[in-house]
């Protein structure tokens, strides 16, 4: 075994240890800093870890969003882990919340103005309720001062059993619809 392979292996092992211990989503930059390697190298290690996890004798997977990654169980083991479902997800979606969260899922990060325009109704209360339930999160809108953009949380991705937002069924098809005016 040459040195490179050993390093590769060590980095997969360290990644696994870090993601396990940290628990929450962590930025790839932070991991790189901690492991004292380049960001690109960290990304390669993450890809390697992800490949390992695809094996049938592994029960875990990686979840990606923005520049962050989190380790979680594979959805095929849901039946063993019922007791871990959060209260906030057990409650069903009302028509208003479903309208809003689907739009955020396929078009996020998206502004409230666009959500309001699409639904034809002021969405501030629906958004607030989804934020409180931890189903969506808001980011500052860099283009508009004081504005926010909304997207799904890691918790939502996990609850839906997908490892990144692009894994939503027919993501490309809906993403490309001109649902919202470019105004």
């Amino acid at each position, binding site marked *: 075994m040459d040195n490179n392979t050993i390093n590769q292996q060590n980095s997969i092992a360290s990644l696994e240890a870090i993601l396990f211990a940290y628990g929450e989503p962590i930025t790839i930059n932070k991991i790189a800093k901690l492991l004292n390697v380049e960001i690109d190298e960290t990304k390669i290690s993450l890809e390697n870890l992800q490949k390992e996890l695809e094996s049938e004798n592994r029960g875990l997977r990686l979840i990606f969003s923005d520049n962050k990654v989190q380790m979680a169980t594979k959805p095929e083991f849901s039946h063993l882990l019922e007791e871990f479902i959060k209260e906030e997800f057990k409650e069903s979606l009302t028509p208003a919340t479903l309208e809003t969260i689907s739009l955020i899922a396929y078009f996020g990060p998206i502004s409230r103005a666009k959500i309001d325009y699409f639904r034809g109704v002021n969405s501030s209360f629906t958004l607030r309720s989804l934020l*409180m339930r931890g189903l969506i999160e808001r980011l500052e809108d860099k283009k508009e001062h004081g504005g926010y953009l909304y997207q799904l949380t890691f918790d939502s991705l996990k609850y839906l059993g997908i490892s990144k937002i692009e894994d939503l069924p027919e993501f490309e098809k809906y993403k490309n619809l001109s649902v919202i005016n470019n105004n």
Partner: protein
Amino acid sequence: MNVYQLKTEKFSGPIEKLLELIEEKKMEITELSLAEVVADFLNYLKTIEKKEPRMLADFIVVASRLILIKSKALLPTLELNEEEKEDIKDLEERLRRYAEFKPSMAIFKKLFEVNNFSVSRQFLSNHEPIFYPADNFNVSSMQSAMKSIFEIFSQLTIETKKIEPELIKLEDKINEIIKKIESGIAKFSDVTKEKSRREIVILFLALLHLLKEQLIKVEQNEGIGDIIIKK
């Protein structure tokens, strides 16, 4: 959950509702089909008024466009200006776009309900807490955090109270029609004489409202003739 959770709207937005009404009648999205569903939409508006008053203002915006469409179908003398024509086109366009996106909601709902999920671990779950304060952990930064929390919180309360004015207008117009009928006026064209287009639309909404409540009867002898109001 518990008492502090916000009550969320149990109702779809106006665009969704309107589309639903058109689809129920198995019609395409056209001016004609929109004119067909006005009464149903106004009926639904009453449910909203009672159960989700917060959403009412937005429903009225859509309702007023619908009434414009209906008025145009019924009152051939009514000429729409450019802005109103744009409004109607915009409504049709939005309905079409909504219809295109709508299937994704069913997909999302199914995924949400199927109970096929991943579980992650809590933040640093194998560690014991250690006291790590921070440079900005002090009394004055906490005081200013409280100030901004409650500023935002009170704005939210104000936002819920902004919907009243529109309603009062409709109420006024209903009373106006009742008074006119009582003073002997029986034609809708007399009621709307010298009124602005916007007012005519609201008057028409009021007329439909009275009709629904069965407080008046109306007759229209020709397809596009004047409307005769009877008590």
